[in-house]
């Protein structure tokens, strides 16, 4: 079956430009997460969407980062005025979310962002 997909797979941009990264979760998954992995570091949580609830934005590193999700489908992560320290692999994950418990998060292949 279809897994989580992300596009583009690679993005090279110049410092100061804006970028948009896209995530298509597994159909029916109500929860969607964005993480980032900088070289040599672990994964950092960025933002979490759950249904129609207000997103948990506690991991966004600055106001240059924002994300949207349309209903329970596609999400876009936008980085404005990119900086070199934004270079990383951006991972998206989705999961079922039941009332009583959380479930396994399935990860996409990631978008490798390089800011020159």
């Amino acid at each position, binding site marked *: 079956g279809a897994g989580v997909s992300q596009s583009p797979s690679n993005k090279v941009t110049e410092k100061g430009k804006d970028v948009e990264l896209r995530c298509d979760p597994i159909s029916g998954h109500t929860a969607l997460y964005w993480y980032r992995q900088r070289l040599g570091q*672990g*994964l950092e949580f960025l933002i979490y969407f759950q249904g129609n609830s207000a997103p948990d934005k506690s991991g966004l590193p600055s106001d240059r980062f924002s994300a949207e999700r349309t209903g329970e489908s596609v999400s876009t992560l936008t980085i404005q005025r990119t900086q070199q320290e934004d270079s990383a692999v951006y991972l998206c994950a989705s999961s079922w979310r039941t009332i009583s418990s*959380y479930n*396994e998060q399935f990860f996409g292949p990631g978008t490798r962002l390089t800011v020159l």
Partner: protein
Amino acid sequence: AQSVSQHNHHVILSEAASLELGCNYSYGGTVNLFWYVQYPGQHLQLLLKYFSGDPLVKGIKGFEAEFIKSKFSFNLRKPSVQWSDTAEYFCAGRSNTGKLIFGQGTTLQVKP
């Protein structure tokens, strides 16, 4: 603050050697712990998870992990590694809000 730490950043083993990767967490409340693996060029995928019950959990590909509450640990083990186990391994804990808190990762290199 909730955190997860992995002790070993880079491990090199020969085939058939036994593996143990350390993971410690620091947060209270309900503990849900995971080990994810990322093979070269592939997605992160779940190896195993602990939610409750038997503290010894078995995952895919012969991996297992033991949740020891008194030590705040969730170490990953495999009795005999193969070259195909070469990958990066991440321990993670789930926060109350559902997001995963990851350790720094351990790169395992298995020499044939």
